[in-house]
């Protein structure tokens, strides 16, 4: 029998139960969609990362207590928690050792536990401000630009002045009609004079970067405590040429600041674009495996759905099978017919899943500001896997249909 005929038959039988066929198809769509969307988004991110995006500003590396990839659990997590904090004293020690060796050295500390809410003249911002204690280098090291007013300076830090540089959001909420410069706002029971406003930065990775306020790190410690805090240190080399030399020197300086003996390991994490890339790649690997397992389960469930619907269909169409056999259909014709229906449901669902997955994955990638990609490999794999599911789960029902006794089948009502 001609292949075209089989396809035609399959289509017309599926058309009879449109709802049922579509629902079964959606099962496959979901399974394929989940894996393709995740793979597309990750593929896009990875492509972008491998082709130039940098996590940190140019020629910057950073020291911190915790590693970037904190997905590790149990013992590993415990190991990091038990590390000594990087104290302000150590950070200052490092700063003095590295002075003149680097363009910028940014010491920073975040009050993640405080949901900052600025108040001016009775008007409040949402309690979502990230409070940062730092120095003049924060802007450069974190790719912020000053909108107007002035940046923090060394004197502010030395004298722990009650001055603050605020993000665009604060200006929009509290000072819609006047300049915020030299205005005094209240936050967490303290007062600060606004000296500068950051230029708008927008969102990255789904988080607004304009809900921020930066004060001298010394003031930060006085108002929010110093005892349990760990300082992050970002260092910017003068140029790409001097990066490696600065990097090596910095590690030495950091070891001295931390008081490590020669035989002791570094008890701090080093972030560089390279280390963040590899951290990303390892996270991406975990996410990939996760997506793979989830969609594998979804696809098996969908496959069982196909088998179920095909078995129902075989029972419902017993008479039809009897008629076809009585007028000369061979068992293999019947087998092919039912198998084609199963494969068709599976393929149609799969292709829909691939298309939706690529669209959503690329939308995700666009939102994360990554390059858009078309994952050919995954698309082809998707089609092949769907054929395999259709054949795998459609074979038994099709075999049942094909092996029906024509006399019994004709008698069936």
């Amino acid at each position: 029998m001609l292949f075209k005929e089989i396809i035609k038959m399959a289509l017309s039988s599926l058309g009879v139960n449109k709802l049922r066929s579509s629902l079964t198809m959606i099962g496959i769509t979901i399974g394929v969609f989940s894996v393709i969307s995740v793979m597309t988004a990750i593929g896009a991110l990875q492509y972008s990362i491998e082709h130039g995006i940098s996590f940190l500003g140019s020629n910057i590396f950073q020291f911190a207590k915790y590693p970037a990839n904190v997905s590790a659990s149990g013992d590993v997590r415990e190991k990091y928690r038990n590390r000594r904090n990087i104290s302000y004293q150590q950070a200052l020690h490092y700063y003095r050792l590295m002075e003149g060796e680097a363009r910028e050295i940014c010491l920073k500390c975040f009050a993640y536990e405080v949901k900052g809410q600025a108040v001016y003249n009775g008007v409040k911002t949402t309690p979502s401000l990230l409070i940062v204690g730092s120095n003049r280098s924060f802007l450069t090291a974190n790719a912020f630009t000053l909108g107007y007013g002035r940046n923090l300076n060394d004197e502010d830090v030395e004298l722990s002045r009650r001055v603050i540089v605020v993000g665009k959001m604060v200006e929009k909420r509290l000072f819609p009609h006047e300049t915020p410069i030299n205005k005094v706002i209240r936050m967490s029971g303290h007062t600060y004079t606004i000296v500068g406003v950051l230029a708008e930065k927008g969102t990255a990775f789904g988080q607004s970067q304009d809900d921020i306020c930066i004060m001298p790190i010394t003031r930060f410690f006085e108002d929010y405590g110093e005892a349990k805090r760990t300082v992050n240190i970002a260092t910017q080399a003068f140029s790409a040429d001097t990066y490696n030399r600065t990097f090596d020197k910095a590690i030495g300086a950091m070891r001295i600041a931390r008081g490590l003996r020669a035989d002791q390991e570094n008890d701090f994490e080093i972030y560089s674009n390279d280390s963040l890339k590899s951290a990303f790649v390892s996270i991406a690997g975990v996410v990939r495996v996760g997506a793979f397992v989830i969609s594998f389960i979804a696809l098996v469930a969908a496959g069982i759905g196909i088998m179920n619907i095909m078995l129902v269909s075989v029972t419902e169409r017993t008479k039809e099978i009897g008629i076809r056999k009585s007028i000369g259909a061979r068992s293999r014709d019947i087998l092919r017919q039912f198998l084609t229906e199963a494969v068709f449901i599976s393929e149609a669902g799969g292709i829909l899943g691939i298309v939706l997955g690529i669209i959503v994955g690329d939308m995700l990638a666009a939102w994360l500001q990554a390059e858009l990609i078309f994952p050919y490999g995954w698309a082809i794999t998707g089609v092949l896997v769907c054929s395999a599911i259709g054949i795998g789960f459609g074979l038994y029902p099709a075999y049942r249909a094909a092996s029906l006794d024509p006399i019994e089948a004709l008698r069936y009502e």
Partner: protein
Amino acid sequence: METRDLTRPRGPIVIDIENITKDYVMGEETVRALRGVSLKIHRNEYIAIMGPSGSGKSTLMNMLGCLDTPTSGRYEFNGKNVAEMNDDELAAIRNREIGFVFQTFNLLPRSTSLRNVELPLIYAGIDPETREQRAAEVLADVGLGDRIHHKPNELSGGQRQRVAVARALVNRPSIILADEPTGNLDSKTGEEIMALFEDLYQRGNTIILVTHERDIAAHARRTVHLRDGLIESDHAGFIPEIDMATVG
């Protein structure tokens, strides 16, 4: 009723069965549906097979229609030994040599008349153009030239049975095997269908009619009575008295 042409010369033998038996095993018991039936059917015969239920009539029909194979005995169809054929070979015989007409029409409900009639040609591997043309021709032959795009539920019972007859004819089979073809029709429509069979017979087709109705069997030129899995009588023409006794 037309005159019966008993003088017509006999054609070559199409069906030759000799001493066939069929046993069904049902649990502990073995039911002997056919106990040794021998029958020769020539080309262009019009034969009625009669018998009460349980006589083995359906079993014999399934056997003649190559839907089933005998437990023992010899069955030759156009000189080919059917008793030893496998399922695929039987399917090919059904497709090319036998045209079934059923009591309940057995059309595919969601396909048009044309598609229903085309079906045997699809399984015969005929190309689409030839197929459609031949199906349309045969439908016109049975008087449904204007109904080829109707679905079964848009047709009357008589029209449905005509589609079924067209489907039986489309592959130019050696025999037409009709199982109670008028059982689901009123008597007037039934007569129309029987007139169609008469016409097909006159045009040289071989017709095997399986029925328990005397007036339907009366159209045939030869009547075989079955009882308890054996042939009770085999007569040229139609013998009402015997039939009366059989149907009771």
